[in-house]
């Protein structure tokens, strides 16, 4: 094995940790936002439903990278000095929130109305009907597409390298640049990028498998 492999692997390992960290924080932020949006969509207030709808339409009609860059440049302008990492996580979280919100809303809307009516007729209060009848069913429906959205967010984490975060892709680029200037001047770009692709593939393929497994298990 050539002597460049080991240091590069170590460096990419650090990048992978950053990628996983970004993905985790984005998922948490996006899930909280998604829950809020789904709650808005079920509101009896027309205005609240409108706000939820508007958020989803706006954030799903614009490229994720555009939102990320917008947040990255806009935060300092409104006086918030954060690093690229924080800006990237906020940007991706805002974008992911719209997608995950749609997943949750779709699941809630897919529960037939008569389920709620039946529960109410049996004497459950509105809250009890929601907690014991609607949410357990909606949860089963939402879980597979939710895990699907996780793969989307993991893949989107690669965008953070555009604003200079040393995630997996970012550290791969730095390594390739450095290798191009030392020793034989061979950047090994193909091997390194294929390596990055394989790492993403393993993570996302596993998550996809998990989604279909959950789908089979939870089938009513």
């Amino acid at each position, binding site marked *: 094995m050539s002597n460049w492999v080991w240091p590069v692997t170590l460096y990419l390992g650090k990048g992978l940790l950053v990628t996983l960290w970004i993905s985790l924080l984005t998922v948490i932020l996006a899930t909280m936002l998604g829950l809020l949006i789904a709650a808005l969509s079920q509101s009896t207030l027309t205005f609240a439903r409108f706000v939820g709808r508007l958020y989803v339409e706006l954030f799903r009609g614009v*490229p994720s990278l*555009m939102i990320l*860059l917008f947040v990255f440049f806009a935060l300092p302008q409104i006086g918030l000095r954060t690093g690229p990492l924080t800006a990237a996580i906020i940007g991706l979280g805002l974008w992911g929130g719209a997608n995950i919100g749609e997943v949750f809303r779709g699941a809630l809307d897919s529960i037939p109305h008569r389920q709620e009516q039946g529960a109410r007729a049996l004497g459950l209060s509105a809250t009890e009907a929601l907690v014991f009848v609607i949410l357990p069913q909606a949860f089963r429906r939402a879980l597979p597409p939710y895990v699907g959205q996780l793969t989307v967010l993991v*893949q989107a984490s690669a965008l953070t390298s555009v604003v200079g975060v040393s995630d997996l892709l970012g550290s791969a680029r730095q390594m390739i640049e450095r290798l191009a200037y030392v020793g034989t001047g061979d950047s090994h*770009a193909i091997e390194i990028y294929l390596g*990055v*692709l394989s790492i993403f593939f393993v993570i996302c393929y596993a998550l996809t498998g998990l989604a279909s497994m959950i789908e089979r298990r939870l089938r009513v």
Partner: protein
Amino acid sequence: MQNDLMKEATELLAGLGNSLLISAIGIALGIGIGLVLGAIRYARIPIANIAIVGFVNAFRCTPLLVQIFLLFYALPDIGIRLTPFETSWLALALWGGAYQTEVFRAAFEAVPKGEVTAARALGLPAFQTFLDVTLPIALRMAITGTTTTAITQFRSSSFMIVVGYQELTYVANRIVSDTFKVFETFGIACLMYLLVCSILSALSRTFERRLAIPGLGVVK
């Protein structure tokens, strides 16, 4: 001041034009790839099937951004040099093709088996059954999925900022770096993306309604 904004809006429009150009090529090629590969998957041709599943998974389970880096920065090492323009439409076409393959495979398999059996019973050869019965029904069923992928391809054209292709996000990013007018510039760019996405999804709904066969499929 007013003139500046006009000048920037014109530059953004030119960027939008470039985004639309690469997206149009990428979407058209993606649909072509998806249709052919989806049909082969539907026909269950043994070895080709495995190869196509590999292609689809490879492109769907890895970030488009890393694929772009591989195409643009790594392929020159094995003597394949692509211009930013070629990289842009090729990356969109391959990535979209993988998604469209799944869309068309699902559409072909959703065609009611009775239709195919009836056509075969009437004496139509297998291939003609596919052309005259399966294809016309499947194409209608594929409209929603195809447009969703196409819209995502258009939004993902913003990733081409990393190869330096002068699309909308690239132009917006350059203007912001020069003038620091974050909100105006990104605001206009976002509106442009939103507008194109809304037009595409409205077109999709119109097509679906116009082409619907009474009694077949769900019409909204």
